[in-house]
């Protein structure tokens, strides 16, 4: 279980995150949603101490994250980046195995684990192991990013708009694949997105942010049926409108 307790981060006079209280259950898939600049990426970065809080605390299974060395903490938590962040000078296998290398695992042990991870994200190991990231498509690169984040067997995965840069069919396919991995490995996942449709389709719960604060936390259904205020209602409008338009197209005359 991850607990955010009165968590805040200010940059000078500006509060990027302004007093957040939130519990994320073990095995839960939580989506942090909101518009650009709402503080969702900062909130995510506060969990593995890529950013240190100005106030409040993050507890993982009841332990304050500040009691663990930041580097050690980050090795226990998987992180997938929006811009993918593969190391361009390392092969796919080297990228996926980097956390294991940092942990001092043997070369043979790393190779076995890399095979497993590539298979898990549906990249044929014999074909992709030794190529450099520059030779991959966007979707393939992000599969490698996910494999890298999973290699050290983390219990918690943090994903910062992981599918944002991909074309829609690839994005949907990858999102569905990841959701399956989440179930299979029993992960706790916190995923940041500004795409409400994606949030609705992926998350067990959605935490909607605005200007550094939580506006509403609930299941996708709760957010649609009982929005807390006009802002939430407005945010829900877009996916609903798109769904209606698609339904009309399907039902209507050709």
């Amino acid at each position, binding site marked *: 279980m991850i607990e955010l307790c009165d968590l805040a981060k200010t940059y000078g006079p500006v509060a990027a995150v302004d007093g957040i209280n939130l519990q994320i259950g073990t095995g839960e898939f939580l989506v942090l949603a909101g518009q650009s600049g709402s503080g969702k990426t900062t909130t995510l970065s506060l969990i593995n101490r890529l950013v240190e809080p100005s106030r409040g605390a993050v507890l993982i299974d009841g332990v304050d994250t500040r009691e663990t060395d930041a580097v050690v903490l*980050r*090795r226990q938590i998987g992180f997938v*980046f929006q811009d993918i*962040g593969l*190391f361009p*000078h390392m092969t796919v296998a080297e990228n996926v195995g*980097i956390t294991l290398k*940092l942990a001092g695992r043997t070369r043979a042990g790393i190779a076995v684990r890399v095979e497993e991870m590539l298979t898990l994200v549906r990249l044929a190991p014999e074909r992709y192991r030794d190529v450099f990231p520059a030779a991959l498509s966007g979707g393939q690169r992000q599969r490698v990013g996910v494999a890298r984040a999973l290699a050290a067997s983390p219990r918690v995965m943090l994903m910062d708009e992981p599918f944002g840069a991909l074309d829609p069919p690839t994005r949907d396919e990858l999102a569905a694949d990841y959701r399956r991995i989440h179930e299979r490995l029993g992960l706790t996942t916190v995923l940041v997105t500004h795409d409400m449709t994606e949030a609705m389709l992926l998350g067990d719960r959605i935490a909607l942010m605005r200007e550094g604060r939580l506006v509403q936390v609930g299941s996708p259904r709760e957010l649609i049926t009982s929005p807390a205020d006009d802002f939430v209602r407005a945010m829900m409008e877009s996916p609903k409108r798109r769904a209606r338009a698609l339904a009309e197209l399907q039902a209507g005359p050709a």
Partner: protein
Amino acid sequence: MSADAGAVSAAFSHLGDYLGWHVLLSLSAMLIGVTVSLPLAVICTGSRLLRGAALGFAGIIQTIPSLALLALFYPLLLGLSAFTRATFGIGFRALGFLPALAALALYSMLPVLRNTIAGLEGVDPAAKRAAQGVGMTRRQMLLLVELPLAAPVILAGIRIAAVWVIGTATLSTPVGQTSLGNYIFAGLQTENWVFVLFGCVAAAILALVVDRFLALAEAGLVRRSRPRIAVAALGLAVVFAAGLLPLAAGVERRPVVIGTKNFEEQYILGALIEDRLRAAGYSAVRRDGLGSTVIFDALAAGEIDVYVDYSGTVWADDMKRRDRPGRETVLAQMTEWLRRTHGIRCIGPLGFENAYAFAMRSDRAAALHIHSLADLAAQAPRLRIGGDYEIFTRPEWRAVERAYGVRFETERQYQSNFLYRAVASGDVDVISAYSSDGRIAQYGLKVLADPRGALPPYDAVLLVSPARARDANFIAALKPLVRAIDLARMQRANLMADRETSKRSPEEIAAGLDAYIAGRGLQPEQK
């Protein structure tokens, strides 16, 4: 053309020695420069203040003319060596390899520093964030991500530095370090343009080859192509090995080091000494073109073993004497002073003087009724004088100024080759000349008398380092040179090197002198 072919083959005969030292010097300087610059750049990255200080310092070094930078390290190291000898009992050679190495290493720093900082600061922020995100420490981030990603830019900096260092290393010749610059400096002095060209081309080829291999390594890093990097590394290794091989073959025992100053007479006498020592079974090398104070200190320190100096130079520069007791007294007192204060052995005078003299075109002297320095002083404010790079700062010149109160309209400095042309063409009215110079007669110049005895005598003398002074065979090999060369013979020998046509190399002229001294009766000009 056959003379040129001879010069080319003479040039090739030195290539192993010169190229070897050039490669060793450049490679060592680059290794030190990179070893210092890389960590420095890492420390400076991210701190505006440190980066400014480091780049500013390296930039200032770059603005110092390279020749001056090399020259400055000699007194610096000499002082340091005196200090360590006094404090720890261990001194080191202040001439030759060390000053050249220190100056070139400093010179290599700016491009490496600048490119390393730029390379590290140019690393994609996404890669750095990812490195942090996967749990790398600061050190792992630097070694596993930042440096590898900056490597092509860093290597580009090393490439620039390597080309600079290989080019600038030619300037280490005047501080006594053998390099491809020996061709250029010797060629410039003796107007052997084949030598000058040979030195330039050899240095340029070396720089180009190293540059191409480094470029290949850079491309290999950019394209992550291991074969390219391997070929480049192999190529560089072959270049270094080929350059250093002749050097390694030649260092089994320390040869005699013969010093020469930077003019033709010195090269001829250096070659003559070399001939005699080789004939006596010594292996000898020459350190050509040393400055006149550098060469004396080097002899006292045992960095060179033998050279020819002039009694008046020691008298004025080293003994700080201003009195003029006469030629033989100066010789005797100088010999005693050298032995007592430095342990230097003066074997004896060669038999001629190379004195400072002032010379005019005979027709011009006659027209102005100038026969002596006293006559000259009266008309000097309307006249122009040309001198070499040293004369106007030397005590002899101050003595002349004091004795005659001369003050000229203008003073100009020339490389000694061009002095005679300047007076012959009328660019200047009077020049500082050297009495043993064959061109005085060739150009029909009149040497002005010195009625007040302002100028000291300048007997050419053979000086031997304290260590070699005890070597009886060494002294015996050189003894026959004492009082063996009169002024007219030296003037003719010098003219063969200085004249415009059918020039001879110092080695050829020396061989002629040697043959003459050995009593075979061959005149030098018939050689």
